């Protein structure tokens, strides 16, 4: 059972465009993380959001945690080729604090 659904699965856009990636669940999470993974490497943490409604900015990336703590979004402004990669959201469940549930990922490609 996939608890975290990410959309879109694939996205290819032109450099300079804006984009939003969504992470949705029917479950409530105590916190949610976003990772980026490049080929041949492990995922690298970008941000953790903890409070419902929380918004965090990391340069051109804006992360939001839904009010109900069931969903999150990642918005990239003026995408650059260096943003290319696999973006993964991951939720920490209240029922099992040791387990982090990963979404299926969004593969982003930015064309120069």
């Amino acid at each position: 059972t996939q608890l975290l659904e990410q959309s879109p699965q694939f996205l290819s856009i032109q450099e300079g465009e804006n984009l939003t990636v969504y992470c949705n669940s029917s479950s409530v999470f105590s916190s949610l993380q976003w990772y980026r993974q490049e080929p041949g490497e492990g995922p690298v943490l970008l941000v953790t959001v903890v409070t419902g409604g929380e918004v965090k900015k990391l340069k051109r990336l804006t992360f939001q945690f839904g009010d109900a703590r069931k969903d999150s979004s990642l918005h990239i402004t003026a995408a650059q080729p260096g943003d290319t990669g696999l973006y993964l959201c991951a939720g920490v469940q209240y029922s099992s604090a040791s387990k982090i549930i990963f979404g299926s990922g969004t593969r982003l490609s930015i064309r120069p």
Partner: protein
Amino acid sequence: GAGVSQSPSNKVTEKGKDVELRCDPISGHTALYWYRQSLGQGLEFLIYFQGNSAPDKSGLPSDRFSAERTGGSVSTLTIQRTQQEDSAVYLCASSLVRQNEQFFGPGTRLTVL
């Protein structure tokens, strides 16, 4: 300091053989996680260690999979009688305490022929 390392980086084996995958976490990290990632997909949780004990083994897909951690450091994931569906990238991560930022190794790409 050194990050999480995994060995081997690639492993090709024949169906039915046993394989051992090794993870060296960041020194001092008490929590260690194993995940499996199919081609270009998300991560599937396998097992979590706190020190040498594994309070959560719920993600292990079958009794052919086992893992141990010794000295609160190195961990080994063993897959017995490998099957073709075991082919994937196996990722290890460590963190200072549970729920904190996880630092991932580069993974071991396992191919079962």
